[in-house]
């Protein structure tokens, strides 16, 4: 007993020292992760949707920002591009969006019934649409061409049929198309 006790405490000290070294490494890893989130958040202004804004689902169709004639892409007097759309079982409105390449585009969207969401092609445009709330975010597209825009949240039996399209145009094409048009979309008439 007398012999084994110091031996036991020595090996225990080795174990504790190893654990302490590992704890420091782990602490460093965690700090780095959080620091990365803070830096990219502040420096690149890369943030998930950040504000909470409600909207009355019951009057969505008849009054306010999300009436049918106001949906689609709008170019403001200051040249800012805003896309407004709604999701409903089982389509988006408009079903085909037009946006310019390499310019900030603000999206404002909501749902009229169930929970929906969308992702555009392989871009980072990815949001949820919750009835009663307006999702707002600003993004820019870096490649011209056409991309798919599926609903990515289960919204009922027709969910798999809920796909829209997005056309990313060069700035020249975009502004040529939008001239004289209040709300732009690429829905075939």
């Amino acid at each position, binding site marked *: 007993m007398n012999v084994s006790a110091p031996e036991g405490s020595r090996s225990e000290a080795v174990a504790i020292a190893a654990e302490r070294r590992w704890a420091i490494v782990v602490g460093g890893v965690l700090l780095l992760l959080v620091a990365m989130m803070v830096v990219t*958040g502040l420096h690149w202004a890369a943030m*998930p949707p950040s504000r*909470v804004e409600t909207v009355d689902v019951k009057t969505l169709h008849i009054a306010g920002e999300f009436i049918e004639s106001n949906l689609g892409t709008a170019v403001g007097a200051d040249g800012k591009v805003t896309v407004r759309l709604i999701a409903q079982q089982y389509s988006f409105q408009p079903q085909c969006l037009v946006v310019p390449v390499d310019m900030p585009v603000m999206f404002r969207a909501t749902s009229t019934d169930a929970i929906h969401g969308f992702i*555009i092609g392989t871009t980072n445009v990815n949001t949820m649409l919750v009835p009663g709330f307006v999702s707002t975010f600003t993004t820019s597209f870096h490649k011209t061409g056409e991309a798919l825009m599926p609903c990515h949240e289960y919204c*009922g039996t027709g969910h798999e049929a809920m796909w829209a399209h997005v056309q990313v145009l060069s700035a020249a094409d975009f502004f040529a198309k939008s001239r004289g048009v209040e709300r732009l979309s690429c829905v075939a008439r």
Partner: protein
Amino acid sequence: MLRASRLVLAHFWVAFVAFLGAAVLGEWQMIVRSPLSTWINNPEHYYRSVTAHGTVMGYVMPTLLAMGFGYAITELALKRPLIGLRWAWAGFGLVLAGTAMAATTVALGQASVLYTFYPPMIASPFYYLGVVLVVVGSWVWVALMAINLRAWKRDNPGAAVPLAMYGNCAGAFLWAWTSLGAAIEILVLILPASLGWTDTINAGLARVLFSWTLHAIVYFWLMPCYIAFYAIVPRAIGSRLYSDTMGRIAFALFLVFSMPIGIHHLFADPEVGAGFKFVHAAMTAMVSLPTLLTVFTIVASVEIVARLRGGKGAFGWVRALPWRNPMMLALTFSFLMLGLGGAGGLINMSYQMNETVHNTQWVTGHFHLIFGGAIVIMYFMVAYDLWPTLTGCAPLPAAQVKTQLWLWFVGMLVLTLPWHLVGLMGMPRRMAYYDYSDPAIASQGSLVVASAAGGLLVVVSAALFVWILARASLPARRRAGAVEPYTFSRAVHEGARVPVALNGFGLWIGMMIALTVVNYGVPIIQLASLKQASVPVIPIGAR
């Protein structure tokens, strides 16, 4: 043999049979939405199947496994009969009744809302009541674990609670608190709408309440796996546990950090502001702490036996590990999948990178890899390890067990890695049909087929698992002599004093509740007070 062995076996059998059924449904889903199948006639059947698969795999199977394992641990680790055996059977009966009620409702197509509920879609009340019964049955288990721990402590003042029991109770208390979020969502918001008492529901609030449960439930699933890492693996491979205290710290940290992080599932949502999203993201980083500690301690524990077997060098000892031992194989597979899945998880929880993968097939791939892969493979080992004690059979045939583990591991990788990839290519999840003739989607077709092939291996492995257990349970397999007493791992430095805080749960439960209240209190109160957030409900199924 255990006094409660019939009770434990009942839990395990229902869990594993339901698991096999749900695995078959999962594979059917994989095939139906792949290019191997043409347009599904009725997409509702697909969502019905997803609801059943998710409900069984998320609520029924892991809950029954944790309960059965918990009862076994109580008798084996505390070395005395379970207090409240009748209550335990009553809890089991509730889970069984709830499962039957929910399953019937889903099968009839009255509840195709998926296991994540998605209000304002509202299913038949019998579905939600079934889920509530499962949860209430599991609360009986939580109460029994607390009662048994208390009684043992009273009779053994000052003694260290065995590590297996400590982890088991941590899992029980974690579950009690985390199940509360979904319970409130169902009882306060969904059931009144489902019963027709109200025709509107606050969908944003429902999502936040569900997120309280949605992430921490993962750690409830994880607990039996971690108990196996600490309390079974070192013994099963002939080694010792490197540090008993580290195990306790890991279990306690899970209690503290599991709950106040669920809003990381809502990064892309409009009903929560940036501030709380960030706080939850930072807290999510903290919950990787107990896992990183566990990886260190368990690797150190297996290194001991490798060195005793003559392993040398900084990494050379790996070759001297007992590779023929099924437990060593399972642990390795579990760690590999935990590493891959964990790395994916770090991407999901990152405040910004999440936007690339949110709600794509990446997420489905992620949680199948980490839960179905890393965790469920240890559920298999828990069952294999306990089976001789539970049924009196001879140890299970190692060759069959290893075949089953290999099939599961390879199947899971082939299933989930292509799944991650198509997610990065922008494929949304939970869809009954994809139009592979679209040039933008066509390139995903072969990956989806590969994934379905992986799913087939997984189903074969699941069937083999149930077959091995069933065969060992036959009366002819019963061993003549007495079964050796079941033991848990012994620590290298046995009998070390356990700090008071790590021999009980008071401090950790206090922190758990305080952090949850801080991180969820404000969003919940704010959302509950928003008038316009209440929206009309959408009944699902022919009602």
